[in-house]
């Protein structure tokens, strides 16, 4: 479970006062939740992900993580660009205390990077990067996955594989995905929320959320 209690977050913008990301937000993310958060560019979706992942701290209020939460999966985040995919997998395995070579194998099996597994990550295309990141974090077996960019799930084939894994092996895990594309949310999520001008509004029905978002 992730609990947000009266959480506020703003940045000081030079000469323009405060830019609010969240205002007095209280929310709960439970195991098994599939939550999609819709928001326009610049609405603070990535910041919200960093708050959930404990990377950035709220200005006020508290966020309590009672389950293991992945790092926010987005292009180039959490990997070192001059190291190979395999070396990055080894590093991540070591810090999360997982069996190193087994994890490298698991990532390789999922990401299907072939020889690129042993090339520096800086040479990866966006799709390869997302496969690596997703392979890394799915092999990690977190209780809750944070997916920051819709592109983080790769092309059609990998979206289907990811969806399959999430629906079978990882059925009891939570997923929080942010996107500005309603169809991503429709593919992966069961409930949705809209982040707009510091307000996080939850919807029971996906269709209602998407309709509201499109009317913004």
């Amino acid at each position, binding site marked *: 479970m992730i609990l947000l209690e009266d959480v506020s977050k703003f940045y000081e913008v030079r000469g323009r006062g405060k830019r609010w990301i969240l205002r007095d937000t209280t929310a709960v993310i439970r195991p098994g939740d599939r939550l999609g958060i819709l928001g326009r560019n610049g609405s603070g979706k990535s910041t919200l992900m960093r708050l959930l992942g404990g*990377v*950035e701290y709220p200005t006020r209020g508290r966020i309590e993580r*009672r389950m293991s939460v992945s*790092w926010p999966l987005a292009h180039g985040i959490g990997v070192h660009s*001059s190291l190979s995919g395999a*070396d990055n997998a080894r*590093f991540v395995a070591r810090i999360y205390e997982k069996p190193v070579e087994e994890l490298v194998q698991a990532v390789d099996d999922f990401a299907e990077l072939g020889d690129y597994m042993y090339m520096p990550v800086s040479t990866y295309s966006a799709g390869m990067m997302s496969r690596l990141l997703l392979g890394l974090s799915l092999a990690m077996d977190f209780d809750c996955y944070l997916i920051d960019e819709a592109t983080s799930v790769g092309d059609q084939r990998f979206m289907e594989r990811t969806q399959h894994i999430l629906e079978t092996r990882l059925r009891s895990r939570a997923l929080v995905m942010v996107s500005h594309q309603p169809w991503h949310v429709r593919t992966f999520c069961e409930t949705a929320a809209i982040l707009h001008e510091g307000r996080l509004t939850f919807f029971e029905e996906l269709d209602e959320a998407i309709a509201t978002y499109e009317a913004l």
Partner: protein
Amino acid sequence: MSETGWGGYRTAGDGGGLGRTLEGFRRQATVVHALLLREMQTRFGRNQLGFLWLFLEPLMLAGAIATLKSSFEFGHSIPGVSMFVFALVSYLPYFTFRAIISRAPGTLRANMTLLYHSRVKMLDVVLARHLLEMAAVVTVMAMIVVGVAIWGDQPPADIPTLLIGIVLLFLLAQGLGLMAAAVSAVSEIAERLIHPLIYLSLPLSGALVPLHVLDPMIRDLMLWNPQANIHEMVRDGFFGDLLPSYYSVGYVLFWVGLFNLLGLAALRAVRPKLEF
């Protein structure tokens, strides 16, 4: 139940206070170990010289200074103490001291993306780099000691004193480096001031002049600086009775402890303010 930002979560069978502390230390050691391996890989990865450079850089700089000082007899002659060896033994630890403090802010900034992994703390990132620098300087020092023992026929007077001196200097730099990294993370002006301050403090560091040749009044003033005490200690470990030295280990330990505690507190204070 974990507090905001600690990133961890309680696992089943989690012990009480002491158990959690020990688990925390164990986990930190794991992370620092992973960071060390990664740091070495990236150094190897860029080019084959990357790793060698770790040792060559301090050795070459110390060697160059030592050569300059001895060939121009720019210094003080003490019977039995070669100017070249003196400069080597003085400048090498000083070089590491300066490098650790001035690189700490950059180390942190370059590795911000690592903080996305909630198990990696700011301290771990800086600690891993410092351990590597420390290992390099001890290796280089060992090479110098062996070299001087063979070709200069002058074995070190007291290896434990020499080694403890270097470790103390490293710990002092570590405390100051933590503070420098923390301050730089929130203030650009402070970061720009760090370099000039380090250079201006060179004459006060006691690194390049044996305190024995100074006027007793100036010497007493210099000894207020814990760093001067440590350089004296390192030289005492190397030259022993050849060169009378002046230092207080207790005084150094006090400042080492204080700086490190302040550094840790500063890192903790700036962590919630970091923007990614």
